């Protein structure tokens, strides 16, 4: 019996999800009876992702692992999978609490924890607090909003309600400057330009924290933008801390052009998703949820912080 499992990312044009695809392909090599079908919307659009999942159900794949963009809407679409007897799991981001019965398990990280780690790196370098600017992805992106909440709650030491929480105004010694959080719509160019403008408009900013890798995608542009502030970063007056640990991000960290990275393990998510789904398809029980862990890197441990 051969299995075809679908791995559905939020968008196919995001290097982050490519790593998951690579993991998925590796699992396919290791499991002779499993085919990995990696398919998602070209760009980040909620409706197209739902349409794709519907089509996969119609097509009759043997299992679906999805990273829902719009959790409640995806939950409704997944009801059809239950009717069709197709096992479903989530990865990268999860369904809402009340819909969790619809999926067998979740593999990934808690986005909230990424925020917590980003904030802890920041506080380590600046125990007295200061001014901060946060940068996020799409305005309504749930995962980024959870990370923002994680950052804000950790920095302030308070509970701030639903994601993304309200901007800090002095709690825990931290103040978010006006104009932030920067919304990038996952566009690397916008991210760099926004950071450049904010840094030049606020020469004594304490910390710039981004919840996504887009800030650092464009290596040369990022380096140019940050170079003028390298002295301040080296002396500990200022920090730039960014989520994810893509290769060029790690180089930037080694070169002292960023002060901390918090990485997920998308490769592992894609890889493990295949094994989990095979278990599901064969009727075995699986753990719920499964956390893939985070890599927390600083200038000090840049060489060996990544798992594997």
């Amino acid at each position, binding site marked *: 019996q051969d299995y075809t499992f679908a791995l559905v990312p939020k968008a*196919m044009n995001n290097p982050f999800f490519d790593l998951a695809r690579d993991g998925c392909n590796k699992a396919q090599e290791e499991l002779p009876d499993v085919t990995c*079908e*990696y*398919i*998602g919307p*070209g*760009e*980040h*659009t*909620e*409706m*197209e992702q*739902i*349409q*794709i999942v*519907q*089509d*996969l*159900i*119609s*097509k*009759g794949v043997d299992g679906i692992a999805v990273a829902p963009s*719009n*959790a*409640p*809407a995806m*939950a*409704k679409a997944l009801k*059809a999978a239950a009717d069709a007897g197709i096992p479903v799991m989530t990865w990268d981001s999860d369904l*809402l609490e009340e819909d969790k019965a619809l999926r067998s398990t979740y593999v990934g990280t808690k986005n909230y924890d990424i925020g917590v780690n980003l904030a802890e790196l920041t506080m380590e370098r600046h125990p007295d607090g200061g001014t901060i600017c946060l940068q996020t992805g*799409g*305005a*309504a*992106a*749930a995962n980024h*909003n959870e990370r923002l909440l994680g950052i804000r709650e950790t920095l302030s030491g308070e509970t701030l309600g*639903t*994601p*993304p929480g309200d901007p800090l105004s002095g709690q825990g010694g931290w103040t978010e400057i006006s104009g932030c959080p920067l919304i990038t719509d996952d566009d690397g160019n916008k991210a760099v330009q926004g950071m450049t403008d904010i840094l030049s408009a606020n020469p004594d900013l304490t910390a710039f924290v981004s919840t996504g890798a887009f800030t650092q995608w464009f290596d040369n542009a990022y380096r140019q933008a940050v170079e003028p502030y390298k002295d301040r970063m080296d002396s500990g007056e200022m920090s730039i801390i960014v989520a994810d640990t893509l290769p060029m991000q790690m180089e930037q960290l080694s070169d002292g052009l960023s002060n901390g990275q918090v990485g997920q393990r998308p490769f592992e998510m894609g890889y493990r998703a295949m094994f989990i789904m095979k278990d599901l398809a064969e009727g075995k029980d699986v753990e719920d949820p499964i956390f893939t862990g985070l890599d927390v890197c600083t200038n000090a441990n840049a060489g060996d912080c990544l798992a594997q």
Partner: protein
Amino acid sequence: MTDTTEKQGAARSHAEIDDSITSRSEMTALQAAIRTQPFWVFVAIIAIGIVMNFVSDVFLSERNLFNITRNFAFFGIMALGMSAVICTAGIDLSVGSLMGLAGIVAGLVMQAGYGIVFGFLACMATAATVGFVNGVLIAYLRMAPFVVTLGMLAMARSIAMVVSNNKMIYEFGPDQDLFEWIGGESVIGVPNPVWVLIILTAVFWWVWRYSIWGRWVIAIGGNAHAAKLAGIPVERVVVSVYMLSSLCAGLAAFLMVGWFGSVTNALGLTYELNVIAASVIGGANLMGGVVYAVGAPIGAALMELIRNSLLLAGIDALWQQFFVGLFLILAVLLEQIRNRGRQ
């Protein structure tokens, strides 16, 4: 040189020909239809359907057809309104953002416990307001539709972010079930949004063919200056056209939120190009003056069908967009080739 009888004979035959000229209809309805773009796009749709029937046995399954039709219903509804705008040689880039705004407003109102009627009215009122602003700037202040609606695209999305405070809404108060039924369920096997699309298409068909307003819109698209000189209240009609487009987008947003069961301010992001594409594929001409009611659903159907077919056919994910683009061009090319042959 001539005698009287000959003259009379000529006169009589002349009167007869005059009469035959007056009442002559150049073509039968079918002949006329064959010359239109929607017809040829429809042919392309049928062709894809036949091929897909062999490629994938789930293609014609009830569930797949259900999904396909519902998916394109939203775009079809918006494309109906967009076609009107395009018919006046305008363009409305704000429909996608407006969906986000109208959806959020509906969600907030219902979340606050006001019930579905108020939610619907608030949604449509928001849409009408946005359309009104667009229309006034374009018609009375003579601004380029592209610039105005592009500005509105940014503004509407921003307002949606502000009023939603960037949060997702998925509790719709007392009428949640009814709301989700309207957007997500079906009547006699046909999804409700599809019913809405069918009814609206019929209404628009009538409007373009028989209503005075429709005639005026087409005239404005043909020659706005001449329409103005003929005493048509061009400005008011243009405003109404942009309001109509916005209302269609608002309606689509209402249905879509009901189907999703949740709404974020990202609803409708980048839909504007798809909607315009559906209209243009359905035969609308960006230079104005051409409109087909059936064009909008047919154009939307083609786009959805291509997407669905590629997935069912198991085309490599990276290549899929390529074929989407290719088939889009080929479908429209069909009509071009046919019409070149005729000339």
